């Protein structure tokens, strides 16, 4: 398997890895206070007909605020449904499959002329009930964030794509996005331009404009992290090894031992996570679609990968321990 040898994932390994990750997240979130949930989506490519899976998560954040509100995607669907019913009643109603319908609704043919204040004033009561500060939300315009975990063919690693828009579908600029997710700035090397860590690109599957976090150092970090897993199962000093010596860091962490804001991962969680890994035979076998998949390692890979990003996105990472 490529994951442990090179820190990369083949397309087939990613398919399984993302399924395991979404399944684990949904099960773990149901028993915690985490309201944000990943869902598994798939797209059929034109011409080749190949079906590609990816993970998607939607949330609502107050416009321009770095205080993250952990509102679930259902609240996003509710808010959008209310907006649609009041502004464009001819659109289809948003169903529970928020990912698909939200994607379609966020690509209106014509940009809405609605001011930013209008969506906030038209929020349904259900959103206000979910929010911990309903009055603040009703006064403040909201933005919708849509995160996708997609396999990158060149870098052979998972990549995070961020699509941020207003409720009526108008896309946010990079400066607005960085204002709402200021921790992303930690990915930038000092004196380097924004494009070195985040770039506006076309989503490879949805074909819409979005922002991509550059993955060029992901493989090196994951390789180092997974190698540390083998060493840290008996050593408490795994925290020291968590910091990468790489200079051109995409996910540069502020301090040694703090990885994406989850210091629990480094020592204690590493022991438990590694203890949960079984079947080490064949981990270093040759990669390829026909290779034996080591499911616990694939799940560990995705959990570790997202664990690096969760803090940057202001998402509370679910504990790595199995109950």
């Amino acid at each position, binding site marked *: 398997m490529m994951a442990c040898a090179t820190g990369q994932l083949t397309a087939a390994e990613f398919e399984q890895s993302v399924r395991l990750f979404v399944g684990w997240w949904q099960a773990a979130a149901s028993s915690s206070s985490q309201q944000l949930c990943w869902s598994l989506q798939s797209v059929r*490519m*034109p*011409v*080749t007909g190949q079906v590609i899976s990816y993970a998607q998560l939607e949330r609502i954040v107050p416009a321009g605020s770095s205080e993250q509100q952990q509102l679930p995607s259902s609240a996003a669907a509710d808010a959008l449904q209310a907006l649609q019913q009041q502004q464009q009643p001819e659109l289809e109603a948003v169903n529970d499959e928020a990912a698909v319908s939200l994607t379609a609704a*966020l*690509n*209106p*043919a*014509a*940009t809405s002329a609605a001011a930013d204040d209008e969506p906030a004033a038209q929020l349904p009561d259900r959103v206000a009930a979910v929010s911990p500060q309903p009055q603040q939300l009703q006064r403040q315009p909201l933005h919708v964030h849509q995160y996708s975990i997609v396999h990158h*063919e*060149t*870098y052979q690693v998972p990549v995070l794509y961020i699509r941020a828009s207003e409720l009526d*579908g*108008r*896309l*946010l*600029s*990079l400066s607005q996005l960085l204002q709402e997710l200021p921790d992303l700035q930690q990915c930038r*090397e000092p004196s*380097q*331009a*924004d*494009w*070195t860590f985040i*770039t*506006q*690109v*076309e989503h*490879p599957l949805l*074909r*819409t*404009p979005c922002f*991509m976090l*550059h993955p*060029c*150092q992901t493989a*090196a970090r994951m390789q180092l992290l997974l190698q540390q897993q083998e060493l840290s199962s008996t050593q408490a000093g795994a925290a020291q090894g968590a910091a990468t010596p790489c*200079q*051109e860091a995409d996910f540069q962490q502020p301090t040694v031992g703090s990885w994406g804001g989850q210091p629990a991962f480094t020592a204690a969680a590493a022991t438990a996570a590694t203890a949960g890994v079984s079947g080490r035979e064949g981990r270093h076998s040759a990669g390829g679609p026909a290779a034996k998949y080591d499911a616990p390692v694939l799940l560990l890979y995705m959990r570790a990968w997202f664990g690096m990003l969760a803090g940057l996105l202001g998402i509370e990472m679910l504990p790595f321990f199995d109950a």
Partner: protein
Amino acid sequence: MTAEDPWQLKIPIRLCLSSSEITSPVDVKPVYLLAPRYAYLPALAEQCLQLFQHVLLSLPGQAEPSPWFEHAGLPLNWTQPLGVLHDLLAPRLLQPAPGGSQQQQQQQQQQQQQQQACSLSAPAAPWCLTVHYRDMPALLSNSWQNAGTAKDYFFSSLKEAGYCCRGSEGCGAVMRLPGQAQDELWAAVNKGDGAAARRITAPLRLTATARQPAAVATVPVRLLIRTHSAQCSSQDLAAVWEQTYSSSRPVEPDWCTPLAWLHANLKAADSFLYIVVHLLM
């Protein structure tokens, strides 16, 4: 074919201003220009803004114009070089001409016509584009930022090509390019100045290199496959992106195929080899 040839190739473009943008009672004549194949749309926008500015609607407090281009009703994505967009969109499907004069053989002739392969027309010259400065479609970006986003995407592509060619070292080399060199490279790309562009990118050594002695060098390739079906009108370009497969990935060239040679000599400004395939269904 020498290495200079691709940079010297230009596309003749007939650029019209959208009628919704014109505020003067006099018709605005279209502009004819030659655009380098490796340039990007934002460069075109900046060039023609000077020509059309006098007739654009200007209101106090209005945001800066956000230009976007359209070909036969299809908004153009500014992430692809002009040459790639042209090669992908300009050719049209030619239906075999209906014929058959004798009724006895009419059925047989119809069968023969159906079996005749549809063909693609040569791209019409000049390539007709329409420029808009307002109401950018939602499927394009509405954060133009003075073509800065297109430049950022170009360097992101260059970095990805660097990773294909030389792994992390290639990536790092692109990221370490000084700011001034980045500006000069972007200007050279949009002017079609191949000599200046190669001078800046030569130290990056973006050629397919085997990273390990036993490994095979990979070539960065962007493949776009557009399907043409006789059942649907090829003039209906609105669905072209849904019918186009695009892939950006490293390809291990077989030593029998000249893929590495193609890349070395015909790669675009971002060091990707673009291959546009038209599939006739």
